[in-house]
């Protein structure tokens, strides 16, 4: 094996055409993952709360929405967004925005389950106690249940971030210049080093994802410990 091809294109792998052009490579991968995760956090929270709403219709609609998204491959969601978004919001939306939207939609559906499980995990007694002190349902949710639930969910969120980083590789399909797309480009240009190139980016993904997996485990232990006090 000859890893010279990797060193020759190192800056291309990490930042793409930046600063001559838009950010790409590892930089874009992280950007896509961070933005989509932040949005999915909000989306998941909203969807999760709606799916345990006391209004039956709201509950039904949001649950079906979640189920449908979860039934689709992410690739399908990306194709749909690629197809529908311009029709909805007009032209000129960059492909990276489409991917962020697709990732957000997809991950929100999974996040909502985490949120729901987190809320369900808070003992009923707490809600009852809060309501009996005169708080409304909304206040109980906002000030008593959610803060605790969110804290317990932190490790799961970090795990979602790991999935998200892996999922950004699918942006390759619609020509967004994140790490996998950059690797294919370099591979297309050089032809002779697919083993080296794909091994290299696998290691990069691994380093990033493994770091966050470990963070999630550490948080889980730490939070479990303080909780028991």
């Amino acid at each position, binding site marked *: 094996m000859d890893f010279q091809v990797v060193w020759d294109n190192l800056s291309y792998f990490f930042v793409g055409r930046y600063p001559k052009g838009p950010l790409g490579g590892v930089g874009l991968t992280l950007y896509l993952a961070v933005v989509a995760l932040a949005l999915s956090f909000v989306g998941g929270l909203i969807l999760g709360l709606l799916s345990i709403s006391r209004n039956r219709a709201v509950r039904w609609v949001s649950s079906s929405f979640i189920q449908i998204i979860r*039934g689709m491959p992410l690739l*399908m969601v990306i194709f749909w967004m690629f197809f529908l978004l311009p029709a909805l919001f007009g032209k000129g939306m960059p492909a990276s925005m489409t991917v962020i939207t697709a990732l957000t939609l997809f991950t929100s559906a999974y996040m909502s389950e985490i949120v729901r499980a987190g809320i369900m995990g808070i003992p009923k007694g707490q809600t009852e106690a809060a309501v009996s002190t005169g708080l409304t349902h909304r206040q109980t949710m906002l000030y008593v249940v959610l803060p605790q639930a969110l804290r317990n969910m932190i490790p799961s969120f970090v795990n979602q971030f790991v999935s998200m980083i892996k999922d950004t590789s699918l942006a390759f399909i619609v020509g967004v210049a994140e790490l996998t797309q950059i690797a294919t480009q370099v591979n297309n240009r050089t032809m002779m080093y*697919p083993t080296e190139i794909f091994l290299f980016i696998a290691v990069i993904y691994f380093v990033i994802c493994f770091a966050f997996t470990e963070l999630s485990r550490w948080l889980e232990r730490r939070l479990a410990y303080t909780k028991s006090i």
Partner: protein
Amino acid sequence: MNYQFDWAVVTSGKYFEWLVSGVVVTVKISVVSIALSFLLGLVIAVMRMSRFRPVYWFAHGYLEFFRNTPLLVQIFFWYFGSYKVLPDAVNQWLNAQGFEFAAAVIALTIYTSAFIAEDIRSGVRSIPKEQMEAARSAGFSYVRSMFYIILPQAVRLTIPPLINQFLNLTKNSSLAMTIGVAELMYQARQVESYTFKGFEAFSAATVVYVGLSFAITGLMTLYDRKVLQPIKVR
């Protein structure tokens, strides 16, 4: 230019046949990979619980590496990258078989087996330790007690998360389109590029994927109610 819906494109004729053949390939690739990933997952899970350090470390590294790299990259690696690693004779034989299908199966199997191994391990951990001790004192070896006593129970408890992994695998098999495997997603895109009826083609594929996952989720709920709850309550 106004978009004209034409559902006939995907409900009959040549393009319908393409989509059906896509479903067949998706099912084939999924069934083969599910079977293999389950077996491999079992083996890795047992290795991961081994007290023999090298085996433990191998399984541990395997789990961490394959869970923390994107499936798409793994697919590319097996399809394009394994060429340099394998002997020529093996390459020629694989190519004659149509390597794209094999590469997709290998990637899906390895990726999913890592997740399955973790699920099985947590299933095993929920089986009381005394069972193992009892089995050992009855004269079973460690491996035999594992395979005859512990794993059968653990797998039964692990079935819901396992089914979930199988569902994920089926959805993930759509990535095989990138190396030319003519599965459902590939065919949907083919229909789009031949007819420009993307909306209809994607709808058809979506209905298949979502329908499949609803059916399986339904069965799982049933399993949980009829089989698992009675065990748990006991």
